[in-house]
């Protein structure tokens, strides 16, 4: 009789990151070459390069990884992803880390504590109107997070309105009830992951 050689174990941080990323992100393939950090346009402003972050994920350093500003400073240009010799889905992993850092509330401890506010404000409009709304997004986000900078941004906002490039009111799609039901169900399913 064959003896089971593997034992069920609790999922590690590494397993959780992989499971929360769509498709197969090939994270276990990282050879620590650093091509990602070298290709990154915002790399110099990051707490850790993607390469370093992946080693930290492997080492189970949950708190350090999820409070790093790296995922929030990722501009999603996909340069690292197309250059990675191991085809690791680096950009997708950055999105996974953003979601995990919000779920665990760890982004607040890091050096980019306001970054999720922009995404959250953006999606609030999408969830209520089905379309994005730039004027509302800009005023609500900056009033909440950088109220003192509002005066500096006013000329740009006025310029956008004068050039006819910004609406004063949001547009709403017809199927709003349908979209709300879809998103409510999706969130319920996300919670079960």
């Amino acid at each position, binding site marked *: 009789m064959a003896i089971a050689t593997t034992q069920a174990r609790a999922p590690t941080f590494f397993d959780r990151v992989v499971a*929360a990323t*769509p*498709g*197969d992100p090939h994270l276990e393939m990282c050879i620590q070459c650093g091509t990602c950090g070298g290709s990154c*346009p*915002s790399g110099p*402003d990051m707490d850790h390069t993607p390469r370093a972050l992946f080693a930290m994920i492997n080492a189970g350093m949950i708190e350090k990884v999820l409070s790093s500003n790296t995922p929030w*400073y990722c*501009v*999603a*240009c*996909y*340069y690292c*992803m*197309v250059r990675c010799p191991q085809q690791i889905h680096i*950009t997708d992993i950055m*999105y*996974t880390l*953003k*979601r995990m850092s*919000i779920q665990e509330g760890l982004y607040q401890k890091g050096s*980019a504590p*306001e*970054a*999720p506010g*922009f*995404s959250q404000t*953006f*999606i609030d409009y*999408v969830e209520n109107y*089905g*379309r*994005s709304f*730039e004027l509302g997004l800009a005023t609500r*986000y900056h009033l909440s997070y950088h109220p003192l900078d509002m005066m500096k941004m006013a000329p*740009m906002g006025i*310029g*956008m309105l*004068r*050039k*006819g*490039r*910004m*609406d004063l009111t949001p*547009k709403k*799609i*017809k*199927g709003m009830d*349908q*979209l709300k*039901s*879809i*998103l*409510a*169900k*999706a*969130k319920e*399913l*996300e919670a079960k*992951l």
Partner: protein
Amino acid sequence: MKYGYYPGCSLEKNAASYDMSAKAVARPLGIEFQELQDWNCCGASEYISINRVAAYSLVARNLSLAETQLEKGTDLVAPCSLCFLNLTKADQYMQEDAPLSAKVNTALNAGGMHYDPGSIHTRHLMHIITEDIGLDEVAARVIRPLTGLRVAAYYGCLIVRPGFQSKFDNFEYPTSLDRLMKVCGAQVVDFPLRAHCCGGHMTQISQPVALELIRRLLENAAEYKADVIVTLCPMCQLNLDVYQADVNKYFKTNYNIPVLYFTQLMGLAFGLSAQELGIGKEFIDPRPALAKIGVEVPPPEEPKPKKPSKEELPMPRMPEES
């Protein structure tokens, strides 16, 4: 040729000139657009940062609309690079990741919808013009060549990277937009940073990071003495045009390079008027550059002073300037 059309939120207002010019050049090229009815936002790069299943479901609602509204085999066209990325990415990962696809379809079902992964092929506007229509067809419609106009062709990121459904051009050094501008008669300058990032939404999260990325691009275009930067993405246009003044202030530079959509320059080459192409909504005035090719753009309209209405409460007003 008939295509489904997904304009996306930017093209409704902030990039309305891209929408206008895309439709204006489509007509002479024999491209017919059927706009998706009641489409919703693609979530940009924000929804995916908060909730995975909801982000994919949001995009999948559009794909499902396309599946129901478009005749089978009709491609969907997105002129915005980020919409293009999200639509192709959602479809691709739904094909690769069966559990994710099942969850997205359970969510869609709550709204009485369904999407079969792989049934909608989404393409960027640039793809269909260069691949389906072809440069010869474009060249045949040029009646006012952009002779002498020095153009820097800027691709940005997402049209060439990562290529979720199909690869387009080279992901580090693409040349298709250069060739398109050449057949329109423009003098295309070298622009080594052509596929580097404009900073995307970083202008909102960390301005110094974003302004540096924008500065590099402007410096590069200025080095090669470009009269105009031509782009194919609303985010790139916004960052390079609207934030150019902020870059100048932050770095004490004095760049003054107009940023236009490729469809606007194509339209001018086709002999269309600046108004039809939405020219005049830019922050950096393109008139001096366009004067080089003999295009006159009427001066921007100043908003008319509002007449006091009887229903309105009396408000203090500045005296009108004579």
